């Protein structure tokens, strides 16, 4: 059964000059124990999806249309009190920037414990600290470090502590919003490996959000490629990376320098991401697309199944 079913999600930000169409008509599903990677450049709307799922959009952000079915329940219509039951217990998130995501004046252990106390009324203090110790152990931190403040942790340890915090209330779905982006390669590899291990061990479902395709290739089974607020390609990681169909995906994969293989001249996608206040008509990639046709400027391509389990929104197919 699908843990999460997102249907036609449309999230816009209201600003003085109009609506910024950050996420437009996005649909995807996620099965139990599956990891989905959402890849895209900055401004493509991938973080907005994460914030919409948890309903923690900043001021001005509105879910204007669509459904978010989490374990069969639509989150869009829930009241704030009901939503609080879902957050952390149902869906939790590991934010990017391990440096600023923790409160500097509380001990790390207390911050992790807070999540447990809020979600399970009547747990004794001893139980809480025992569970905190266990959580820290799970992510590979010495349990005695629970009494440290965040500044006494290194970057990698803070990221681990954030993961421990996200796991505090035994969530079904874990969202990683650029985990590891601010970290060094070696620490990043350690963090990704930890996330993968945890997912397999605890049977978590996971959504990984990253601009780095290689991070997604290493951690996820399913991939959604976003461009300017829309999913342009969706499918099995192997099939998307081996046989990218959308011109944007092709360009993005080529733009990544690979550590393996011959030295090549890097290629890029000419032009820039569009202004989401006023996105290009029809296919939003048409001003930068090398295969642009008349129909691309007239009709919006729909996400269609091209191969089994591999969907693409492009008029070429």
């Amino acid at each position, binding site marked *: 059964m699908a843990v999460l079913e997102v249907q036609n999600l449309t999230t816009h930000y209201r600003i003085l000059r109009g609506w910024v169409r950050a996420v437009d008509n996005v649909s995807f599903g996620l099965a139990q124990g599956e990891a989905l990677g959402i890849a895209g*450049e*900055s401004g493509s709307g991938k973080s907005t999806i994460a914030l919409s799922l948890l309903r923690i959009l900043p001021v001005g952000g509105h879910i204007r249309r669509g459904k978010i079915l989490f374990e069969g329940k639509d989150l869009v219509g829930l009241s704030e009190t009901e939503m609080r039951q879902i957050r952390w217990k149902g869906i939790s998130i590991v934010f990017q920037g391990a440096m600023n995501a923790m409160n500097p004046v509380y001990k790390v252990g207390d911050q992790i414990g807070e999540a447990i106390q809020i979600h399970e009324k009547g747990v004794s203090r001893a139980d809480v600290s025992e569970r905190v110790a266990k959580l820290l152990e799970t992510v590979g931190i010495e349990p005695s470090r629970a009494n440290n403040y965040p500044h006494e942790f*290194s*970057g*990698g340890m803070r990221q681990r502590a954030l993961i421990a915090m996200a796991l505090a209330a035994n969530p079904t779905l874990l969202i990683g919003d650029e985990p590891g982006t601010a970290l*060094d*390669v*070696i*620490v*990043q*590899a*350690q963090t*990704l*490996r930890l996330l993968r291990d945890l997912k397999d061990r605890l049977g978590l479902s996971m959504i990984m959000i990253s*601009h*780095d*395709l*290689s*991070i997604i*290739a*290493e951690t*996820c*089974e399913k991939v959604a490629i976003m461009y300017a607020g829309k999913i342009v390609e969706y499918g099995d*990681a*192997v099939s998307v*990376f*081996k046989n990218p169909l959308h011109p944007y995906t092709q*360009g*993005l*994969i080529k*733009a*990544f*320098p*690979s*550590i*393996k293989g011959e*030295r*090549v*001249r*890097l*290629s*890029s*996608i*000419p032009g*820039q*991401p569009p202004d989401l206040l006023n996105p290009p008509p029809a296919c939003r990639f048409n001003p930068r697309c090398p295969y642009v046709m008349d129909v691309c400027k007239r009709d919006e391509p729909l996400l269609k199944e091209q191969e089994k389990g591999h969907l693409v929104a492009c008029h070429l197919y």
Partner: protein
Amino acid sequence: MTEKNVETPDRDAKQTIKKNAKPGRSKKTGLLYVRFRTADNSFLEGLVPKKPTATGQSFKDLEFNKCYMIKDAGKIGRLWVLREMAGDEYESSKNLPEFSQIDEAEDNPSIQTGPVLALDNLKKYYPLKRGFFETVLAKDELNVKAVDDVTFSIRKGEVFALAGESGSGKTTLGKVVLRLITPSGGRVLFLGKDITELTDKEMKPLRRQMQIVFQDPFESLDPRMIIKEIIAEPLRVQGSLETDKQGKARTRRMGEPEIEERVKKMLSEVELVPPEEFMFRFPHEMSGGQRQRVAVARAFVLNPSFIVADEPVSMLDVSIRAEIINLMIDLVKKSDASILFISHDIALAKHISDRIGVLYLGKMMELGDAGMVVDQPLHPYTQALISAVPVPDPESKRAKDVISGEIPSPVDPPSGCRFHTRCPYAHERCVDEQPPLLEVEANHYVACHLYS
């Protein structure tokens, strides 16, 4: 009377402080150190007087990379180094010959040309600020050893990449070679001259030759200047370089129309076309990629021979990174300039650079041709770094052996080999003894006891 008495010791005190600031350097020997590359691929070292000789020759004006006939040795050599001889160095050096006559000779193309930039045991320590009692009680000074004994050189037209994690000292090194920061020890030879001992005034004409592109185009451009002014500023400061009738180089102030012409040309070279459309914009009216193009234009407008690019694309979107990189590489190749490319992304470094140096806690761990360093890394650290780089291929999900731990603090770094605390092959020798950077294969250097 009393005034005089007070003043004298004060002045003396000031002088001692000044002397202590640069030990050994203050003592002038009145000699210049020269090093020539000869046709048999060896070096010819010697000393020459700083003052013009009786025959009227002034050795101070010898030109870098020019061929000279050294009468005393009876050889022709290409000038690689010309710098002041420091007092303590003079005393400790082996008896170098003193040359008395050096004449211009015809260029011999078979003699190798000198490196644009050569670092010689470069060090940059930042003293740690501590409380008063700690300072009094502590025996030695505590330093953050950001760059520690780094030696390498960059050839003409070469793209040299410096890779390392954050905290490895790569940015500090980039700033020291441009003398934006003064080093704590060692030398930076730029076009054969030791720039660490030049005054700021002497540095100014050299700055035309050395430029930098910073990481963040949102912070490196003045928000109150229009693009035209940003690119024109180096031209206004440095003027135009010309040779007069006697063949001597001199600078000339440039007129407004001339400056505008150059700015326009530069803008079209960085593909901000038409230039008229971009010239009068402010930085905030441009995207990140366009801003970085402006930063590149500003760096190249004086036709420098050496550029430091400090993570120039890490703030940009993936799809436009390649454009900026290719643009810079093309400009460098076109003008035969050299570039020191600082990056944490070793995969990127592999594709764009000729050679790669891997830095860890201020020390050079491995140095060699880009392909060699990445495809057959020798140092355990380089191996760990490369295996940690994620690959955009979902089928290569291997059980990775990631080394544990994080980069230690550069204050009081590990003894011996700096990497021994995390190295899977560490043995006793690594704890006690610092491994030297040795050439293990042709053009492939590594600092590791496994290979010595």
